């Protein structure tokens, strides 16, 4: 069985190499047979990797402990979903997941475009398969998941495995890595089309139109992956937070930031034919940051809760990135003539300039996170000693950047494309600014003194009002014309331009996320050792240890104190945080007790038994507004899905009186209708 798996990977590698050569030679020598067979090879790669992945999954679920990977990540006592999740629980398996997802995306791209973009497709296929070949080298020759455990001259069956890392035995971990990988891998599509567009010297924006939805879906997966990771960290790691600026967390954030910048700046290219070079740079940076993120997780160059063990794999990633980045830079520089802007910025007070600022700020944030993440590597290279920067550095740098981004989220929709006079701006900004200020002043009067919290809540109100006004004014205009009520008109408005109004909803989601983040300014925490019957106070809560339970199952043993909780004298349900000890891996973990409410979470972690007889050590946190982080994510998701819905058609072009040489032709066109 494992031999077939290894053979499938080897064959997939051969077909991937053939696809690169076949598509390029077919294109240059004008041999369409070769081009088509190269596209067929992409399907073959997918089929072979599906076979290899199926064999690995079967071995994990069946428990074939002759295989080193199965032994290291699975055991008999694990529930079946975790046995399945063991596919990406270790280095070799997760690299196979990367490869398989890439081949799936590649097969979809080739199928979707089997009759379109014949000029570009050979280059698209070669970029896809070049990346695929790199991962297949890792799967086949560096980190094979089909290695066997040998003793003496024979293969041995150990009988049972070590099992999945207990920290990964949590429900979000079953979906978090695939989601994040779907995001990471998905950026190959816009990147491949961008490179193909450069290679074929396209002047138009075909690559952007083709990959618009793809980019959004990928961004959605990335957002979901990052948020699921936050949910996992909050519920499993037991330190009371959801984001610790861990290098691998940062690595997942970096491509998300550049992808967000790309989603905005691409509109400049579509609307005005501007920023073509910048968009190429952004889409390439996003793709290579995805590879960089994978490299950080696997190379062991930084210390992280997520990192796999250090191995020789890092140098392969470095080689791939050096080749890929050099090729991309060369292509961009050699095609500058085809990337000239078709129009200029007309005014500083315009939507264009707000997008430019948005891009600059996002890039500043990206650079700050990258700098902080790589600081230990840089200091080691220069001073021979690893110096890490911690949470305060990231917060100090990124909170002002976040505030500025939040401001731009509100400012952007208020400013018109091309130019806005002060008169228009005054009219547009007055109510949102007044209400934002009122919120900040109201909170100040209520006793809040944190400068950033006041600013953040004020800006959140400002952005919410701008978005609400956008919906209201648009719906009112439609309602005035059609006579339908405001709610129906709002649906109509969104349906007419799903991309714009879906985007506004995403902004609302981001605002809600910021509300949740701002709650961290008011966090309370304490660590106490309590005897049986002992009590403690945190915020409005009183906690009393009233008992202790322990037991075991086949996978782990557990102990949990029973904690009676009252809030302002009112009795709440009993909370029982748990400490587990997994037998196979001999590792302790924590299963926290959490009381989620919209205003605040009560979070209790049982750190272990104390020094005294029957004493327990509790870490208790009161985290205000955390639930809004998860709610914000759902709003972002809904907004993104709306963006993906095709806009309603039937919109008539505005009547235009075209002046100049082509007036006659334009006159004939001015009654034309468009497909939205």
């Amino acid at each position, binding site marked *: 069985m494992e031999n077939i798996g290894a*053979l499938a990977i080897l064959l997939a590698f051969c077909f991937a190499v053939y696809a690169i050569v076949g598509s390029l030679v077919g294109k240059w020598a004008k041999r369409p047979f070769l081009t088509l067979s190269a596209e067929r090879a992409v399907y073959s790669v997918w089929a072979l990797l599906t076979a290899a992945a199926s064999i690995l999954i079967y071995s994990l679920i069946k428990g074939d402990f002759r295989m080193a990977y199965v032994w290291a990540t699975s055991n008999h006592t694990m529930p079946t979903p975790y046995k399945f999740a063991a596919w990406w629980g270790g280095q070799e398996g997760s690299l196979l997941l990367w490869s398989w997802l890439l081949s799936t995306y590649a097969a979809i791209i080739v199928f979707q475009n089997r009759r379109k973009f014949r000029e570009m497709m050979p280059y698209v296929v070669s970029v896809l398969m070049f990346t695929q070949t790199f991962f297949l080298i890792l799967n086949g020759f560096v980190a094979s998941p089909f290695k066997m455990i040998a003793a003496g001259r024979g293969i041995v069956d150990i009988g049972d495995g070590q099992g999945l890392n207990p920290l990964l035995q949590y429900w979000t971990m079953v979906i978090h890595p695939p989601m994040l990988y779907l995001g990471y891998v998905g950026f190959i599509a816009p990147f491949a089309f961008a490179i193909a567009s450069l290679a074929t010297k396209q002047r138009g924006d075909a690559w952007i139109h083709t990959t618009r939805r793809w980019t959004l879906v990928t961004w959605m997966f990335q957002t979901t992956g990052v948020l699921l990771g936050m949910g996992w960290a909050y519920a499993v790691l037991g330190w009371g937070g959801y984001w610790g600026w861990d290098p691998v967390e940062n690595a997942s954030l970096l491509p998300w930031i550049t992808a967000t910048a790309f989603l905005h700046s691409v509109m400049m290219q579509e609307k005005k034919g501007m920023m073509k070079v910048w968009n190429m740079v952004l889409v390439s940076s996003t793709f290579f940051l995805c590879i960089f993120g994978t490299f950080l997780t696997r190379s062991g160059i930084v210390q992280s809760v997520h990192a796999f063990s250090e191995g020789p794999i890092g140098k392969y990633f470095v080689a791939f990135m050096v080749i890929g980045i050099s090729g991309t830079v060369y292509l961009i520089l050699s095609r500058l003539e085809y990337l000239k802007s078709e129009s200029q910025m007309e005014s500083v007070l315009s939507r264009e300039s707000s997008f430019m600022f948005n891009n600059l700020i996002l890039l500043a944030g990206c650079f700050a996170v990258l700098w902080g993440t790589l600081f230990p590597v840089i200091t080691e290279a220069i001073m021979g000693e690893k110096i890490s920067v911690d949470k305060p550095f990231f917060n100090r740098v990124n909170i002002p950047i976040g505030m500025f981004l939040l401001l731009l989220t509100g400012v952007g929709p208020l400013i018109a494309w091309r130019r806005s006079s002060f008169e228009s701006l005054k009219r547009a900004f007055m109510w949102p600014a007044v209400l934002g200020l009122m919120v900040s002043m109201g909170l100040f009067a209520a006793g809040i003194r944190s400068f950033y919290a006041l600013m953040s809540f004020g800006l959140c109100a400002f952005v919410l009002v701008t978005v609400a006004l956008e919906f209201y004014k648009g719906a009112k*205009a439609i309602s005035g014309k059609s006579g339908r009520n405001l709610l129906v008109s709002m649906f109509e408005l969104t349906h007419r331009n799903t991309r714009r109004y879906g985007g506004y909803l995403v902004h609302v989601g981001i605002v809600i996320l910021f509300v949740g983040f701002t709650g961290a300014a008011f966090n309370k925490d304490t660590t106490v050792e309590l005897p049986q019957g002992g009590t403690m106070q945190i915020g409005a809560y009183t906690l009393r240890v009233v008992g202790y339970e322990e037991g075991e199952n086949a996978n782990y043993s557990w102990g949990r104190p029973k904690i009676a909780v009252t809030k302002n004298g009112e009795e709440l349900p009993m909370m029982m945080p748990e400490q587990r000890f997994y037998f196979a891996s001999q590792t302790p973990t924590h299963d926290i007790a959490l009381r989620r409410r919209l205003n605040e979470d009560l979070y209790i972690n049982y750190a272990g038994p104390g020094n005294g007889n029957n004493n327990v050590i509790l870490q208790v946190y009161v985290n205000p507004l955390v639930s809004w982080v998860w709610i914000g994510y759902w709003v972002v998701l809904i907004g993104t899905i709306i963006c993906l819905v095709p806009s309603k058609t039937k919109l008539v072009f505005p009547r235009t009186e075209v002046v100049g040489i*082509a007036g006659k032709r334009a006159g004939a066109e001015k009654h034309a209708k468009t497909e939205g």
Partner: protein
Amino acid sequence: MMLLAAAVLLIALTVLFTFSIRAKDMPAPEPVSPTRHLDERRAAIYENLRDLQFEYRVGKLSDTDYQQTKLGLQKELAGVLSEIEKVTSGVKPPSKPAPAPAPKVVLTCPHCDAKFAKPMKFCGECGKAMS
């Protein structure tokens, strides 16, 4: 033996699928449009004009901003259409676009006072009947 058979089958199937290409499998050549990117640009300008009109209707733009931006877009459209004509007809356009003729106002909308050079049934600005 089974293993060998499975391996041979895997290789045979994938090789056969990849290389057994018949003439009818070849995709038809795409029609090549020399003005494709100009057509895309033209569509983008029309969309910009439509957005502009909507933003004006919802009160996001002052009259001056609206008129200035609209004129800018119209000029841009004229340039793109001229380029398209140049490519499709092979006729070289003059180096500078001809100056815009002074609009001759013949009709004013009774509802919004927008002025038009040609008679129209419905107003191009507010959409209401001109009569």
